[in-house]
């Protein structure tokens, strides 16, 4: 008697221990050791971060310059769809929701999915899949959260890993073609750092050169440097509420629109942050 329910590909892909078979949408990459190790890393992410992924096509998903393969999410189950050989959970982590599908082939899989109910917080380990531009998480493991400090811990981990990938690793993303907000966070820090390594030189260099900039990227760098130098002054740091963009514009003699644009860019880099509407503070690292 044949087991007509058994699907070899799905069984192996459900286990997730054989990435080249599991990721049917990810082609084998001829790769250096570093690419292999990147592809094997496990990233804690928020659903917002998943949505912000660069759109390199179905099989080429990366975030902050690191190839995303395996991810961890922690969120609340808001919906469960139970089919014969799979169970789909809608997991909402507060930043958004994503559907996580767990294949059920063995008794252990059934035990695992039966333990989950709607309203429960869960930790999901899985692999992001993008099929016909619909992103779901192919789930290896889903388990209830029992100690709710795990929720705090997960989000702090997301922040730490983001910070590590965008700042501490320097410029990971060297792909010139990426121009969306995610690439902005990874590509720009190298540029910004080279200006800020020597503040005095950076400031005077930008002040002398502003009139000669004739393309947008150089102008953004120049303005960013000036605005950041201004906000780094002890007098500005001393203001708990931060400094309003209008004041910055007035002090630096730049238009308010340009200052706001620059401050938005610096905020996306994590170099400044908003305290209340239109007030900004240097991120005192």
């Amino acid at each position, binding site marked *: 008697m044949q087991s007509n329910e058994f699907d070899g590909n799905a069984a192996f892909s459900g286990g997730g221990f054989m990435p080249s078979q599991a990721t049917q949408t990810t082609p084998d990459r001829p790769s250096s050791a570093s690419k292999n190790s990147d592809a094997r890393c496990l990233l804690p992410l928020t659903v917002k971060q998943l949505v912000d992924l660069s759109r390199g096509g179905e099989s080429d998903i990366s975030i902050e310059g690191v190839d995303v393969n395996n991810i961890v999410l922690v969120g609340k189950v808001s919906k469960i769809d139970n089919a014969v050989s799979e169970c789909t959970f809608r997991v909402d982590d507060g930043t958004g929701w994503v559907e996580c599908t767990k294949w059920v082939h063995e008794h252990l899989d059934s035990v695992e999915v039966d333990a989950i109910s709607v309203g429960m*917080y869960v930790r999901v380990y899985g692999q992001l899949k993008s099929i016909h531009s619909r992103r779901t998480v192919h789930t290896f493991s889903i388990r209830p959260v029992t100690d709710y400090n795990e929720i705090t811990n997960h989000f702090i981990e997301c*922040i730490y890993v983001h910070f590590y990938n965008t700042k501490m690793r320097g410029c990971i993303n060297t792909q010139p073609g990426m121009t969306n907000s995610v690439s902005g966070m990874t590509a720009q820090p190298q540029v910004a750092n080279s200006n800020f390594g020597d503040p005095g030189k950076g400031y005077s260099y930008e002040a002398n050169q502003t009139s000669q900039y004739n393309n947008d990227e150089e102008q953004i760098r120049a303005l960013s440097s000036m605005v950041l130098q201004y906000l780094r002054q002890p007098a500005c740091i001393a203001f708990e509420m931060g400094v309003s963009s209008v004041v910055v514009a007035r002090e630096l003699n730049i238009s308010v629109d340009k200052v706001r644009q620059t401050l938005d860019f610096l*905020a996306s880099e994590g170099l400044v942050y908003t305290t209340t509407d239109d007030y900004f503070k240097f991120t005192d690292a």
Partner: protein
Amino acid sequence: MDISSPAAFANGGLLRMHVGRKVRTVLQVTRSDIASVIGKSTDGYQLVAKGSPHVPPTSFVEVIGVAENENTIRAELWTNFGDTFDASSYDQLCQLANGEFKHLFL
């Protein structure tokens, strides 16, 4: 996949930034009655969560709902977080999630 209706991390001091929007916060319950739960936020403010949890609240409860004003939330979802919870770490997370790492959440 959908991020159209996020709930912002909030404590007592940050709730005013999100009035009218969906928020999430953890309260240490001080009093609960039929129509509301009153508790202390992770930064020490007294907040009111309007509504009624389906089960009696434990010492710590997560409330997800719409901020009506700077100290009231109209609760939609309740989750009991038990009797031991690290409120100070959660508070730090609220600061980070509303500050320089806001783009990872909202």
